[in-house]
């Protein structure tokens, strides 16, 4: 009886592929020889849809890309359109956007910690992380009436002003999140099983990460200090002082630590933004029928999953000629094959989880 490798099909209905993703695994007993992701199960033809909507009507659709961080998608798109149309965003609006974007990063990373731990078996951490995230979602609900698909950031600014009770509520939540995180850290940080499953797993060196075009926390875990908020600042991020957490050897454990570090930094940024909230309009005056002269603009932001970029091309009408989205999870997922080779089958779940991909923004 000759031993041969066989290919294993994981997904598109699989408990831990974070959405409809199918992985074709070439496996030798339990050791992974190759991973080939198959995409398209959640393809809704967003870019085609966008070509027949006005610039404003595209914003609610960008929520559905990375549905765990809808505000970042809105911010990315709106900044690109403002750059194209030359719209000047008032100071207060820029600060409100920073508060919202960082709260969204907080919620996205909390959701990630929950999914990641649950994939590796620590199911209680999922509930603790989501309980902390609930408070952030309640803020969003009070701010713009929705919890997940917010479109709270519009072309020219934000949908509403940050009034005093809401600011007080945000500060209260910022105080509570770290306690729930202490529970999570106590359960995971030094736990031998967690370290056994994450230290040295899915290792990717800095050079490889750059070669693969990796961005976001996964790249910073390999020690490469690229963060759009620092390198190409936007929406007055350079007014705030915060660090960029870095990892040393780019394994799943470092990605875990980097994301937890980023949660702490986001809290710091939101506090500074709230303290220094300038007066003025919460949004610029933007005509309801927005016509933009023919041109093209490309702009990137640091979304929770990585560098999110939009290319918007206008043709003088009120509808965009073409909107192309650079999705961080799409590019990061390409590196999955390089990360999983030689590891065990159950590590693929851990590595996939550590990349924090969302199928909504991969399949568009």
């Amino acid at each position, binding site marked *: 009886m000759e031993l041969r490798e066989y290919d294993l099909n994981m997904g598109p209905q699989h408990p831990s592929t974070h959405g409809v993703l199918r992985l074709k695994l070439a496996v030798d007993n339990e050791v992974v020889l190759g991973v080939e992701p198959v*995409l*398209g199960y959640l*393809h809704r*033809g967003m*870019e*085609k849809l966008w070509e*027949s909507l006005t610039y404003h009507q595209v914003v609610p659709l960008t929520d559905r890309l990375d549905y765990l961080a809808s505000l970042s998608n809105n911010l990315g798109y709106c900044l690109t359109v403002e*750059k194209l149309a030359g719209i000047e965003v008032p100071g207060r609006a820029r600060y409100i956007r920073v508060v919202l974007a960082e709260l969204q990063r907080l919620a996205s990373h909390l959701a990630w910690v929950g999914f990641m731990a649950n994939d590796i078996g620590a199911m209680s951490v999922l509930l603790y992380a989501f309980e902390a995230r609930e408070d952030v979602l309640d803020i969003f609900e009070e701010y713009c009436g929705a919890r997940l698909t917010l479109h709270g950031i519009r072309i020219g600014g934000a949908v509403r002003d940050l009034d005093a009770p809401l600011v007080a509520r945000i500060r209260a939540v910022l105080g509570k999140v770290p306690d729930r995180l202490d529970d999570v850290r106590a359960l995971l940080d030094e736990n031998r099983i967690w370290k056994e499953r994450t230290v040295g797993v899915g290792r990717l060196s800095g050079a490889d990460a*750059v*070669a*693969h*075009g990796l961005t976001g926390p996964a790249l910073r875990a390999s020690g*490469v*200090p*690229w963060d759009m908020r620092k*390198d*190409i*600042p*936007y929406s007055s991020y*350079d007014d705030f002082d915060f660090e960029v957490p870095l990892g040393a050897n780019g394994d799943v454990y470092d990605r875990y630590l980097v994301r937890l570090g980023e949660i702490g930094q986001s809290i710091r940024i939101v506090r500074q933004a709230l303290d220094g909230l300038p007066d003025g309009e919460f949004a610029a005056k933007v005509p309801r029928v927005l016509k933009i002269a023919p*041109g*093209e*603009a*490309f702009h*990137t932001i640091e979304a929770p999953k990585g*560098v999110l*970029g939009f*290319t918007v*091309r206008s043709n003088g009408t009120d509808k965009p*000629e*073409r909107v*192309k989205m*650079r999705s961080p999870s*799409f*590019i990061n997922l*390409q590196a999955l094959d390089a990360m999983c080779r030689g590891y065990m089958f159950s590590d693929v779940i851990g590595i996939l989880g550590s990349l924090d991909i969302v199928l909504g923004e991969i*399949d*568009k």
Partner: protein
Amino acid sequence: MPEDAADRTGLDGILEALTGRFPGAVLAGAFERNELSVRLAKESLASVLRFLKDEAGFNALEDIAVFDNLGAAGGDGRFTVVYRLCRFPGALRLRLAADVAEGASLPSAVPVYRSADWAAREAFDMFGVLFDGHPDLRRIYMPDDFEGHPLRKDFPLAGRNGGA
């Protein structure tokens, strides 16, 4: 967004280097919103990318975007394939544009930038742009037996063969 003059000189230097090294290739170079935008002849793409990555330090290919100029004035090629490059640290942005006629192909960037693999597959799936030297050029979103390329301007919106 502060634009310091240093950005410009950095990009100027690159424009001169490009026009110097590839005389025939560079058709036009322009500065829009502190980005250098260069139009290239598609044949020279691979060598220009190689030069930019190795010597000019553009270590990240951020995006490959394709535009369908159906009916627009652009005579020589229906599709404009735009490569967005970026240099870290220093965060310099570069836009390389190459025009491709329908059904024609252009050299693939995969040998230079690993992350061009899926981006090229998406461009092929959505527009039908062919890439030479691409390791595995097949559809990425659409099912393999899908005919047509959805993001083309002339793709019927109300469904085909009886709105199926």
